[in-house]
């Protein structure tokens, strides 16, 4: 018999008899014989290992991945501290092994935690409504663009300074709908406002930009929001949930929809997933918002209760007319985010954001003390920035790698996108700079 199936041979006999069959294979009598797999399935991989062997195997595989002592790379995935409470709470079987909370009476715990999450996302962005999350930040952006479409719209504008992965996903989502994705160019690393105000027209569905752009620069999102509002074009703002503690909120920037990658909120880097797609919007757009939404109501005794609501937008009701096909989302990741934010609290989140800001600026200053390394752009940045160097980017990466440091992300021959968070101590930064200086002497 096999793992995780509790049947004894005797049990199986009892059950077969009850069904009126003699053998297990008779259960599959409806399947034409010629289609059946002959003999046992060979997976062509290690197979049927004990738990001990399995763990040994995977420890061995894991050891082939390099875990760096210090990480100065972001570009869409950020290394933040994860308080102990996050793993502890979210690894409870009650949250881990339950399904989507369709049966409200026995899912209040999950529903209430999503309601908490929705409140926190509304707080981060200042907008009215949040969903219970989508797959990741890139799909959130793509879904948001879709929310703004109607029959009269044939294109959208996006800043060319957005994260390139997000741009690719937006393209994938809009291509089958015959919606053109047009780019707004940049000047000195920041989105060109003048171009946007010229380019928007009555067939533009929306404009998407990121408050912290791909180069880490802080965009003047308020100005763009004002232009979009003036031209009656929907404004979608991509935001970083840590930076949101300090930067003008999406609502202050007049965004209709705010989207973001929630990974910085207590999710490990984990080679890119699972992450967390955050989506909030104004109440005017609420019925176009994809995914689940939890609402507060009362039960038969008048007690507070939570249920999935506005379900008539969703695929299981509206089928081909639904706003999106999303069903499984990233609920447990949303819970991690909620626990993270509850652990750090109002001041804690600001502290994390402030330290990111401080350390990134210290890092930039220190890197620029190295001969031949300069800042690539001039605008104000948050926790990422680009340097340009006389030596090649790959040389600097190599130096860092030798010292167990993951350097910034190379974005050109000589350009590196660096990131610093609360995880990069002053000593780490000084060590990094010393290593590069010594090697380049």
């Amino acid at each position: 018999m096999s793992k995780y199936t509790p049947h004894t041979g005797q049990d199986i006999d009892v059950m077969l008899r009850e069904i009126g069959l003699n053998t297990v294979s008779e259960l599959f009598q409806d399947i034409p014989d010629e289609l059946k797999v002959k003999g046992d399935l060979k997976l062509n991989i290690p197979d049927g290992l004990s738990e001990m062997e399995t763990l040994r195997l995977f420890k061995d595989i894991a050891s082939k991945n390099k875990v760096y002592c210090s990480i100065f790379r972001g570009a869409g995935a950020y290394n933040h501290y994860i308080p102990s409470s996050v793993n502890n709470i979210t690894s409870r079987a009650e949250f881990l092994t339950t399904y989507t909370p369709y049966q409200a009476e026995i899912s209040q715990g999950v529903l209430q935690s999503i309601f908490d999450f929705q409140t926190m996302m509304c707080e981060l962005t200042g907008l009215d409504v949040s969903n219970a999350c989508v797959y990741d930040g890139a799909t959130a952006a793509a879904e948001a663009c879709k929310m703004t479409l109607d029959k009269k719209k044939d294109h959208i504008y996006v800043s060319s300074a957005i994260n390139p992965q997000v741009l690719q996903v937006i393209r994938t989502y809009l291509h089958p709908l015959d919606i053109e994705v047009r780019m707004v160019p940049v000047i000195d690393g920041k989105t060109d406002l003048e171009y946007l105000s010229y380019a928007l027209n009555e067939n533009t569905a929306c404009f998407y930009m990121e408050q912290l752009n791909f180069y880490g620069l802080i965009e003047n999102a308020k100005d763009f929001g004002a232009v979009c509002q003036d031209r009656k074009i929907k404004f979608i703002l991509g935001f970083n949930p840590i930076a949101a503690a300090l930067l003008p909120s999406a609502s202050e920037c007049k965004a209709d929809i705010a989207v973001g990658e929630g990974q910085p909120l207590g999710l490990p880097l984990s080679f890119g997933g699972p992450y967390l797609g955050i989506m909030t919007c104004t109440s005017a757009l609420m019925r176009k918002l994809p995914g689940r939404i939890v609402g507060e109501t009362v039960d038969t005794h008048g007690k507070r209760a939570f249920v999935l609501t506005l379900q008539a937008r969703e695929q299981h009701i509206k089928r081909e007319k639904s706003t999106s096909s999303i069903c499984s989302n990233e609920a447990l990741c949303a819970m991690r985010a909620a626990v993270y934010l509850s652990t750090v609290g109002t001041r804690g989140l600001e502290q994390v954001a402030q330290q990111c800001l401080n350390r990134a600026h210290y890092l930039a200053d220190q890197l620029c003390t190295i001969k031949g390394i300069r800042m690539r752009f001039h605008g104000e940045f948050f926790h990422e920035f680009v340097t340009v160097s006389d030596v090649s980017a790959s040389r600097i990466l190599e130096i860092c790698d030798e010292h167990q440091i993951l350097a910034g992300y190379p974005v050109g021959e000589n350009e590196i996108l660096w990131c610093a968070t609360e995880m990069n101590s002053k000593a780490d930064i000084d060590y990094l700079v010393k290593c590069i200086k010594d090697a380049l002497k």
Partner: protein
Amino acid sequence: MNTPKRTSLYNAHVKHGGKIVEFAGYELPIQYETGIITEHNAVRNAAGLFDVSHMGEFMVEGSGAIETINNLITNDVALMTPGGVIYSLMCNEKGGVVDDLLVYKFTDTRFLLVVNAANIAKDYKWVEEHLLTNTTLRDISEEVGQIALQGPKSEEVLSKLLPVEQQPSKNYTFVETKILGVDCILSRTGYTGEDGFEIYCDPSKIEPIFEALLKAGEKDGVIPCGLGCRDTLRFEAGMPLYGHELSDTIPANEVGLGFCIKMSKPQFIGKDALESHPAKYIRRGVILTDKGIAREHALVFKEGREVGYVTTGTFSPTNNVAMAMVRVEKGLDSPVEIEVRNKRLKADFIKLPFIQKNNNK
């Protein structure tokens, strides 16, 4: 879908081994048995003969003709003398390009517009909507056949049918003449970057001229050429092709054709839009330094960011290297990267055109 039309040279193409494809609603040869590279090289080194009967021709006549055309196009017909030809863009109100075209001036009240085959219906409607008083418009596309003789030996080959003195002597000029007894408009124009001629006449009478030119040029290496090399030739010459480098939504001041946009003119459709438009994109040429060919729509990257896309990309037979025309942000430095088959290939900017023209007539 409409069934594709045939030009009056269809049988000639089949006879010469043309590989027929559908293009802009016409059945035309993409190449002959000789192949694109051979045809391409024939035009660069000797001469080649093209059937371009699919092009659209409009007559604009009347005392309002100059004003009408000047309102429609970015170039200035007021500066033309009879027998002149100019290249121009025609814009919409937003400054996007409705089409690019040639304008032939016969007299102050009589002009011929030559437009792209795929745009005939759209252009006709557009011009018709903007006709000023005392002006008439006639679509004569069906009544006109057109062939193009292109290459350094064009003059010599044509001289066997028409003495050099009777040929238009300068680029962008034309004459009305007879070839083999057929009334023709003969202009010194083309779409290959080489010296050459374009001949307009009654389509039913065009085949003898086509065959006679082939015969006249046989010893010099003149061969019939298809659409395939027409594209590589115009590409090398840095000439835009509508639907690729030019479109309704690309502003005219972003395509590097400033020479034909006369902003000093008091008015033309799209002028206001172009005046207020900050042109932040530009048409440029690149040469690929990594192995591979960048095709149309391939994305261009700089510093990890998408900065534009390829509008035409091909292997340049003359330069023996992969090149592309791209629409990118202004002010970028080399190198850039072009995404081809999921890989980023390096490319450097180079000046357009990709070849040195030897066409100084």
